[in-house]
């Protein structure tokens, strides 16, 4: 009963989520602090202009957020001119703001003027190490090929990222590894890496523990912040966004970024921008650290957990509905059995992150809750299919023949004899799937679909272990509860005769 209500509830939710472009305004952001803060600023600005809007925080990397804008799932999001020309428009060489606006128009996308600051890429090193080796420019790195370089995955892959930079400067470094952005800073501080990529407005740079290497060959393009918006957005909303042009300089942005990392509250950091005192001078004293707000946390936790259960519940029910019949077919000897077990087994070998990324690029899926559910569903299939097949194959042939000899039809043999006898093994498969599923569902947050992965992803983005644990611990507890719950379900669903110890004569 509850399960069906859960399914219907979420189907209804899906219907609500899909046609997003028309009425309510949705603001997107990428998964890093500055993008979150800019998103919050846009939200407040639109609210002041009279628009109810929602901020979908940290939807993912450029490609994901761009796809969401293009398909109308969001109305606007903060972007950088360098990314627009290199990644989105794939133009060669520098182009002007006006040219960008003209080239974006055919996509149905508009671009505001520059907001003020330039958040370009930079290479940074621990200050102490840079001073000791006398490195101040990127070209100085040529003399130290042994330095360990830890780069974000995005920078490693970008067209304007590491490879062309290395060839331009003639760098031939021995160790280049991909590390998540904030973890990279930890690696630098812990002495486990020596050089990493950074944004010139990174809050981490405010402290003075890092040296920014001079881009002496002028390699990095400019990354002026702008807002991209849909041309079909209400005119008043566009006008409101454009009031932000030229209003945010580097100092202000670094100040808000470090405020966001300190308080872990993007709304709070963004509200600085609307504070008249802040607009006069970006200096000002830091806020006193706030106490932990339990009521707010429990409220958020309930939301994440419900969403998590929804993702797990729907995908698991679908996996059972599909997996058990497939397992029944696969239990019979023949080539079809090999095909079914082979294909479901192969899906399992795809890393869950890769599977999710793969599905995002499927035309009908994209950035939405269905994509996460499909990924979890595919991931849950194998244990269910395999255990159903094994459970049925393990039934002794003497009992199969007894069932047949009684004069039961094939379907009745399956229903009344085989399935109950295989129930223990099938349930064990479903349990395995459910537990894997609870863990894997945290990845849904990477495509902005919430759940307990949300605090994990934003915790990684703002470099805060406490936030990460807010998602990681409940997810672990949830997995244990699922395990326990299935223990109870065993008592309920496995026939008593199969649970009794054997008779000793």
């Amino acid at each position, binding site marked *: 009963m509850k399960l069906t209500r859960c399914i219907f509830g979420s189907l209804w939710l899906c219907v609500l989520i899909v046609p997003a472009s028309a009425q309510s305004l949705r603001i997107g952001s990428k998964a890093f602090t500055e993008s979150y803060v800019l998103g919050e600023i846009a939200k407040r600005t639109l609210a002041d202009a009279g628009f109810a809007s929602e901020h979908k925080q940290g939807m993912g990397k450029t490609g994901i957020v761009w796809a969401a804008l293009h398909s109308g799932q969001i109305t606007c999001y903060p972007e950088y001119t360098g990314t627009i020309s290199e990644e989105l428009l794939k133009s060669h060489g520098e182009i002007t703001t006006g040219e960008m606006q003209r080239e974006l128009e055919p996509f149905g996308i508009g671009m505001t003027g520059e907001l003020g600051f330039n958040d370009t890429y930079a290479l940074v090193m621990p200050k102490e190490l840079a001073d000791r080796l006398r490195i101040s420019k990127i070209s100085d790195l040529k003399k130290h090929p042994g330095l360990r370089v830890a780069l974000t995955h995005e920078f490693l892959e970008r067209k304007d990222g590491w490879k062309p930079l290395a060839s331009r400067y003639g760098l031939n470094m021995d160790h280049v590894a991909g590390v998540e952005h904030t973890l990279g800073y930890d690696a630098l501080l812990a002495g486990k890496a020596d050089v990493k990529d950074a944004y010139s407005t990174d809050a981490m740079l405010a402290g003075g523990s890092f040296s920014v290497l001079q881009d002496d060959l002028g390699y990095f393009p400019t990354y002026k912040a702008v807002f991209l918006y849909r041309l079909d957005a209400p005119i008043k909303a566009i006008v409101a966004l454009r009031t932000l042009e030229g209003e945010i300089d580097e100092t202000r942005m670094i100040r808000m970024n470090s405020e966001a990392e300190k308080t872990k509250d993007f709304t709070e950091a963004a509200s600085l921008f609307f504070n008249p005192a802040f607009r006069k001078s970006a200096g000002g004293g830091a806020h006193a650290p706030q106490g932990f707000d339990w009521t707010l946390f429990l409220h958020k936790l309930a939301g994440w957990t419900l969403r998590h259960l929804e993702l797990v519940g729907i995908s698991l029910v679908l996996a059972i509905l599909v997996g058990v019949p497939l397992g029944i077919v696969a239990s019979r000897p023949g080539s079809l059995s090999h095909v079914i077990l082979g294909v479901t087994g192969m899906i399992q070998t795809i890393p869950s992150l890769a599977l999710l990324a793969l599905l995002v690029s499927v035309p009908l899926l994209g950035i939405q809750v269905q994509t996460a559910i499909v990924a979890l569903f595919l991931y849950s299939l194998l244990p269910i299919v395999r255990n159903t097949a094994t459970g049925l194959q393990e039934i002794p042939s003497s009992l199969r023949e007894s069932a047949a*000899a009684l004069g039961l039809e094939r379907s009745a043999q399956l229903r*009344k004899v085989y399935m109950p006898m295989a129930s223990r093994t099938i349930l064990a498969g479903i349990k395995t799937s459910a537990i894997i599923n609870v863990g894997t569902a945290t990845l849904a947050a990477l495509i902005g679909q919430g759940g307990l992965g949300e605090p994990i992803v934003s915790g990684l983005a703002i470099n805060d272990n406490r936030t990460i644990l807010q998602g990681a611990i409940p997810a672990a507890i949830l997995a244990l509860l699922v395990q326990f719950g299935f223990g109870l379900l065993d008592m309920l669903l496995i026939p008593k*005769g199969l649970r009794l110890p054997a*008779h000793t004569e």
Partner: protein
Amino acid sequence: MIELRGVSKRFGSDYALHPIDLVMNGGRTTALIGPSGCGKSTVLRLIVGLLEPTSGTIVVEKQTVTPADLIGIRRKLGYVIQDGGLFPHLTSRQNILLMPKHLRTAESDSQRRLNELCELTNFPADGLDRYPVELSGGQRQRVSLMRALILDPDVLLLDEPLGALDPLVRSGLQTELKEIFQRLKKTVVFVTHDMAEAGYLADTIVLLQSGKIVQHGCLEDLRERPANSFVTEFMSAQRSLVQL
């Protein structure tokens, strides 16, 4: 009555059963006997349709066994195997009443039938709600027999029904089975490798060797007029056991 006309069974190039003709009369008890691998169980499995004959026709109570009619024919047959073949997830009662429930027989009818069978097989009523693992081997065979008889079939087939029991229980059950067969007056065919059991329970004995019928007759025929030296050998090997 069961009739086999030129029935054979071949697995690949090996004959489990060479073409045989065999008539098992209605209301009589027939024993199929022979050494391991002689084809005696194959005959039973062919009758109940668990195997399809390579050649020949099988007629059960005037109905030819074909894949299309199999379900109907099986419901007119009772089939008991060595370890009972009881379903472990069902109690004795659920095992016995599985088919009546499936066929939506009136509850009062099947309950009356169940009481009769408990009395016939000398099965204690409190054992009905036990699961197979909670029963002794002898009790399991009684439940299996009740399950086979619940639809009141015309024919009862038993494949080494007492094969897995210890000698004392076995001997007690042999006595009971003889009485049961006499009361039922059904066509009974059972497989055994014990000549004493065959002679004690059956009206007619069919001795098989390597997929062929060596001799078909009553115990007296086999003992006094053996068809060949194998029969003599088989009888003497068995008789020495009886005399012990």
